[in-house]
C-alpha cells in the first residue's frame, strides 16, 4: 500500500519526534525537582528509566509523600507496556545478542510508533534507531535543563508547578480516553484512589488502581488481540495534531 520510504525521510521524522519530546522533558525535569528530587536524581531517572510515564509516576508518588518503594512499583507497572511493544517489534527488528541488549533501552512509545508500521526490517530499524536516539539525547538534555531551571525557581507552589503534575498525568491519559472501557476504568480508578487517600498510606491509592485494571481486564475480555500500539498522533510529545 505504502511506497518504500526513503531513509532520509524516516530519519527526519524521528528527529522531529525527538525535538517535540524534548519540550516534554523540560516539564519532567522541573516537576521532578519540585517533587523534592535532586538534579542528579532527576537526571539518573531519565537516563536509566527512560520511559516518560513511569518517570512522571515515580516523582508524582514521591511528591504525594509516598514511600520510595511504592514510587518504584508504580513506575514499573507503567513500564510493563514496553514489554508488549517489544513482543510485537522483535520479529520485525530481528536483532540478537549485544545489538538487542543495546536497542532495548530505546524501546519506548515513540520508537515503537515510528517503527511498527514499516514494511521491511531495514526501514523498521532506521525508524526505531533514529527516533529512539533522538528522543534519548533530547529527553536527557531537556531533563537536565528543566531540573536546573526548576531548582532556580525556588518554591514550586508559587509557579503552580504542583498543579502542572496533575496536568501532565491528564495529558498522558487523554489520548486513551476515547475508548468507553478505558473511560470506565479511569472513573473507577479515580473513585478508588480518592477513597483510599482517606484511609491508606500515601502511595497505596495509586497502586491499588492496578486492581481496577485487573478486574476490568477480566470483565471486558475479548478474544482477539487488543493490544493498543502507539500511534504517532498519540505521542505525548508528538504535537502533530491538526
Amino acid at each position, binding site marked *: 500500500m505504502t511506497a518504500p520510504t526513503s531513509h532520509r525521510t524516516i530519519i527526519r521524522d524521528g528527529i522531529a519526534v525527538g525535538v517535540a519530546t524534548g519540550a516534554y522533558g523540560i516539564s519532567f525535569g522541573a516537576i521532578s525537582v519540585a517533587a523534592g528530587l535532586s538534579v542528579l536524581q532527576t537526571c539518573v531517572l531519565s537516563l536509566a528509566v527512560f520511559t516518560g510515564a513511569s518517570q512522571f509516576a515515580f516523582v508524582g508518588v514521591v511528591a504525594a509523600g509516598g514511600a520510595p518503594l511504592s514510587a518504584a512499583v508504580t513506575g514499573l507497572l507503567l513500564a510493563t507496556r514496553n514489554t508488549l511493544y517489544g513482543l510485537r517489534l522483535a520479529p520485525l527488528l530481528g536483532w540478537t545478542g549485544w545489538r538487542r541488549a543495546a536497542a532495548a533501552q530505546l524501546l519506548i512509545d515513540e520508537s515503537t510508533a515510528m517503527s511498527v508500521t514499516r514494511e521491511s526490517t531495514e526501514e523498521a530499524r532506521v525508524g526505531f534507531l533514529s527516533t529512539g536516539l533522538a528522543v534519548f539525547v533530547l529527553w536527557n538534555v531537556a531533563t537536565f535543563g528543566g531540573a536546573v531551571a526548576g531548582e532556580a525557581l525556588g518554591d514550586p507552589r508559587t509557579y503552580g508547578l504542583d498543579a502542572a503534575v496533575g496536568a501532565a498525568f491528564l495529558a498522558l491519559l487523554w489520548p486513551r480516553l476515547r475508548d468507553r472501557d478505558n473511560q470506565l476504568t479511569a472513573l473507577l480508578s479515580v473513585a478508588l484512589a480518592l477513597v483510599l487517600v482517606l484511609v491508606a498510606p500515601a502511595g497505596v491509592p495509586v497502586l491499588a488502581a492496578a486492581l481496577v*485494571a485487573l478486574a476490568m481486564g477480566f470483565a471486558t475480555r475479548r478474544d482477539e488481540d487488543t493490544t493498543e500500539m502507539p500511534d504517532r498522533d498519540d505521542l505525548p510529545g508528538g504535537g502533530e495534531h491538526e
Partner: protein
Amino acid sequence: MIWAAIVLTGIGAYLLKLAGLSIPASILEHPVVHRIADLIPVALLAALVAVQVFSEGQALTVDARAAGLAAAVFALLLRAPFIVVVLIAALTAAIIRLI
C-alpha cells in the same frame, strides 16, 4: 532509600524492555494479559491525577490545583500540545494563589 528506588526502577524498566525483545511472543499471548497491560496505564494515570490534584496528606481538598486541572482539560479539548497544557495548568494555579 530514594536512590535505591531510582536504581530499582531503572534496572526493572530495562529488564521489562529487554524481556519484550527476547522472550517468545507465545508466552504472553493470552488476550487477557494484553487487555490488562493496556488498562494498567489508564488506571494508574487516572489515580495519579486524582491523588495529585485532590489530596493533601490524608485529606481531600479542592484548591488552586483543581483550577489548574480544569484549565488543562480546556487546553486538551483545544488539542494543545503537551508543554502548553502543562504551562497553562501551572499558570492558572499560580494566578489563583496570587489573588
